[in-house]
């Protein structure tokens, strides 16, 4: 198998795995934040801020994977 074929197989698979990981992470983070907000409604503002930043961080990882795919696609 040459490099081009390996990249052709690997790149979509990599983005898919990144998206699955990001989805699982986001679900877990948001679920826990909702639970925490339900338990402590007075701290909802702080929990929301942490959740939003965490969500953005998780989402950024998928975008990094996508950009990495674009960079590698140029080498195909």
């Amino acid at each position, binding site marked *: 198998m040459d490099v081009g074929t390996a990249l052709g197989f690997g790149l979509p698979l990599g983005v898919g795995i990144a998206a699955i990981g990001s989805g699982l992470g986001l679900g877990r983070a948001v679920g826990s934040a909702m639970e925490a*907000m339900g338990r402590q409604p007075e701290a*909802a*503002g*702080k929990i*929301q*801020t*942490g*959740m*939003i*930043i965490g*969500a*953005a*961080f998780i*989402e*950024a990882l998928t*975008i*990094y994977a*996508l*950009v990495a795919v*674009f*960079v590698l696609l140029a080498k195909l």
Partner: protein
Amino acid sequence: MIDIMGIDFINRVAKTSFILSLIQFPFTAVYWSFQNASGIFIGCLWGAANILLIKYIITGLLTPKPSSSKRKMLILGFIKFPLLYGIGFLLLEIGYFSAISLLIGFTIIFLVALLKALGIYLIDNKIINTELPNRYNRSSIK
């Protein structure tokens, strides 16, 4: 008392990142290239728009509001998911801006958030002393 880690923290992070990307622009344009400078700037705008839209969608969905805000949520959701990702895809596909510069710009907002949170943590735990020395303290002047 001002809630320093409240929802306004995200606005401050976006504002600081925008200012930082403006400051880096002339230096990067001179010492690296104009394409990369504008790539970093646009990447930063992309990241700021991303985090601000997440904030609006989450706060809009969590706070109980009249049904008229549903349309606003739909519009924001449309801007956030297909449009913002579409713009990102186009930016990468066009190839005018290098992917690395876009990534650097996109990362600025996370670095700013991390450093701001670290600063708040250090000040709150009195690891860094922010009190003025006695000679500058107005209460000590008689």
